[in-house]
């Protein structure tokens, strides 16, 4: 079997979990069953949500110490589970949390870990994983060595959540973690947000991103209205965040966030390669830029060459009618 480790926080499923399920289904191609595990203190509801997937079962792994994420507790609980279930592969969404604990977990069990995987193929029946190198400039094909299980994390947006096949309700098994003999050195303090507007753009389904073409800080209001009209998060290219017009957490690109929303509207963004690597995985890209030669149009599905100060208000007006 293959085991997908879903991620939840305060009872809310990270949608990248569905991407990992889709990836595992593709990896297994029906050859072995795929099961899902989710960890926390009370995960019954999330487990029920996951049982909609076409999987052999959902393990609801619970323990009071798993209420808030700590690497020690999660590694101990997952090491127990993985050792008990002996899967061929452990599939993880490449979230910040995975990045934190997966190396420890793989090292603890002395098994191979392949991170940030974007594609799958098979050679002589052996899975071959592709993953980016050099900020996406090169793509490496990686084959895991050594005994199973092999740990694999999948890049956010590389697999489509809606391509995960649904089933007729997988059985949910509650499984308390024992955490016996585990040394838990960390206790999580209450989560805090650095600013009220803290946002995880990787979770956004629609993003309106604004660039240098907006010219002045006071014009940001227009971009905000456009984002509101699309019911989208507002993001920006680097110059905007450099100027302090938007916080750095809203910066898309190689020195900011990598996102793959369903809709990405680039407004006044020329499309420097550093920006493109952060958003080219978006499903549909709409670009508005006055320079028809701008590189953003090379990745855009829909391009409008024109003045954003005319086009954005028109879009807002049209969207208001809908």
């Amino acid at each position: 079997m293959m085991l997908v480790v879903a991620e939840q926080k305060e009872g809310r499923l990270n949608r990248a979990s569905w991407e990992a399920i889709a990836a595992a289904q593709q990896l297994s191609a029906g050859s072995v069953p795929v099961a899902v595990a989710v960890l926390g203190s009370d995960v019954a509801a999330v487990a029920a949500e996951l049982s909609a997937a076409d999987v052999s079962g959902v393990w609801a792994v619970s323990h009071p110490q798993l209420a808030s994420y700590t690497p020690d507790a999660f590694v101990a609980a997952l090491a127990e589970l993985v050792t008990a279930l002996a899967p061929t592969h452990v599939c993880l969404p490449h979230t910040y949390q995975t990045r934190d604990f997966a190396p420890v977990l793989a090292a603890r069990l002395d098994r191979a870990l392949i991170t940030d995987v974007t594609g799958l193929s098979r050679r002589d029946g052996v899975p071959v994983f592709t993953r980016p190198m050099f900020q996406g400039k090169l793509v490496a094909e990686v084959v895991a060595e050594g005994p199973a299980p092999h740990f694999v994390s999948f890049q956010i947006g590389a697999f489509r959540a809606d391509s995960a096949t649904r089933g007729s309700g997988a059985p949910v098994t509650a499984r308390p973690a024992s955490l016996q003999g585990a040394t838990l050195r960390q206790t999580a303090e209450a989560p805090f947000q650095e600013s009220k507007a803290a946002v995880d753009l990787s979770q956004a389904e629609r993003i309106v991103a604004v660039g240098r073409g907006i010219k002045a800080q006071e014009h940001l209001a227009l971009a905000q209205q456009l984002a509101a009209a699309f019911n989208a998060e507002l993001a920006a290219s680097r110059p905007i965040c450099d100027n302090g017009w938007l916080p750095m957490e809203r910066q898309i690109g190689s020195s900011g966030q990598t996102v793959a929303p369903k809709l990405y509207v680039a407004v006044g963004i020329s499309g420097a390669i550093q920006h493109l690597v952060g958003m080219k995985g978006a499903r549909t890209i709409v670009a508005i830029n006055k320079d028809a030669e701008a590189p953003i149009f090379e990745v855009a599905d829909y391009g409008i060459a024109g003045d954003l100060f005319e086009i954005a208000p028109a879009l807002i007006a049209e969207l208001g009618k809908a």
Partner: protein
Amino acid sequence: MERETLDVDILVVGAGPAGLSAALRLTQLQAAQGGTPLSIAVVDKAREPGAHSLSGALLDPSTLADLVPDFLAKGAPLACPVTNDNVYVLGAQKKFRLPITPPPFANHGNYVISLSHFVKWLAGQVEAAGVDLFMGFAGQSVLYEGTRVVGIRTSDRGVGKHGTSRGAVEPGADIRAKVTIFADGVRGHLTKDLLRTLQMGGSQPAQFAIGLKELWDVPADRLAPGTVIHTLGYPLRQEEFGGSWIYALPGGRLSIGLVVGLDYKDPLLDPHAAFQRFKLHPFVAGLLDGGQLVRFGAKALPEGGWNTQPALAADGALITGDAANFVNSMRLKGIHLAMRSGMLAADTACAAVRAGDTSVTQLGAYKAAVDASAIKRELYPVRNVHQAFGAGIVIGAAFAGLAMATGGRWPEDLQGHAGHTRMKTLSDYYGLEERDRLAGSNAVTPDRVLTFDKATSVHYAGVHHEENQPPHLLVQTDVCHSVCGPEFGHPCVKFCPANVYEMVDNGAGGRRLQLNASNCVHCKTCDIMDPYGVITWVAPEGGEGPHYDGM
């Protein structure tokens, strides 16, 4: 917060060819001589060895053969031997091949290498010999006690843009040593501090050029591996020093680059744009046709030669390699000289520590060793050549010929000038009526096939810096809009190959300097060429910067 300290016998600052050769030589001396083991440490700002190493590169293997006699058996990554030499003079559309290759350009017996790969291999030899490499630790300052150098302090980590904590601040460590060997490369920022503090400057001001390099993958049959091409002329003008290289590596990989002397007069000259123009020349475009850009990088290189070497020793300190300007600008080679100086510094440092005397008197043996070595034999005869190029490429080339014919015997040495002092003001260069012209005099619109803008180049340099850290380019920005604009037209925007310097609207009808510090490729050009001397390059947080794998 407590600062860590580490005490060693010998500290090597910089894990390039000079520093690693010094470290390896120290382990060899240790093995040969026995006795109390010396403690040796090597620090470098790059995350891994070779990550900040960039050169053409052609390697004269003479020093390597002395340092690691069985270098071939040990798998030294010498991509291929040089098979043929070509020198062309380029016009705007045409090329003329020189019928004979001038002797300094003859490379028979040399190798085409990736310096980055070579440094990584050399670092492996050093680590195998038991030396700790502290990678990702940037030197922040030199530690002095009076006029004695007692080590260096590494930079803090985790400090945010405005000096506040980013979460967890880890203060830099003090690494204290009986002898510190400075191998921090061209315009090394710690060597610069050392030269100023202890007044160790050379008899002539140092001179530099900027080298811009790209790796391209082209169809494998385009050029035979080992083909070496140098060009003079286009896109540079008579008044500008420089030239290009094209080296063919195995597997259809080309190393191409342009060197532009950092003593040009045109304040609006843009070396990055000149490099783009170079690629558009029919000869070069033909070689690159159908190929793909793999990597970009830029780095300054010393050009001034023998007479620009600083005092090589101080109490507790030695200076080696590019930091000491040991480059033969006529042969376009310095790796073997850097390695040689590292070995000689190691000899001196080891003897001094053993003798219990690391004063400048004892360490002065290093200067005597350099004078008796291949470094002087190679650099002394050509000591005036670069300075002669100050009078233009024709006189410079004639002088280069004379230097070879006479073995460099001259009644009086030519005096060089710090390159940035030769830059002319806009009104001197363009005339009063053109003073408001701000576009680069040689700007190119990128086609994104052969030519690229600076931001794209930065991407191909693999540069990464934490954005939220104090700027590592210290600029007195008050002169930018008010003085530099009208006088020079913001040459920093032009000479920086990485778009670090940008003049933006200041919201009050004027312009202000915006520093895109995280773009920096660590080339040091701004520290060298800014006409007012108000830019100081200090190291950003260790472990970041460009990633020059294969360069």
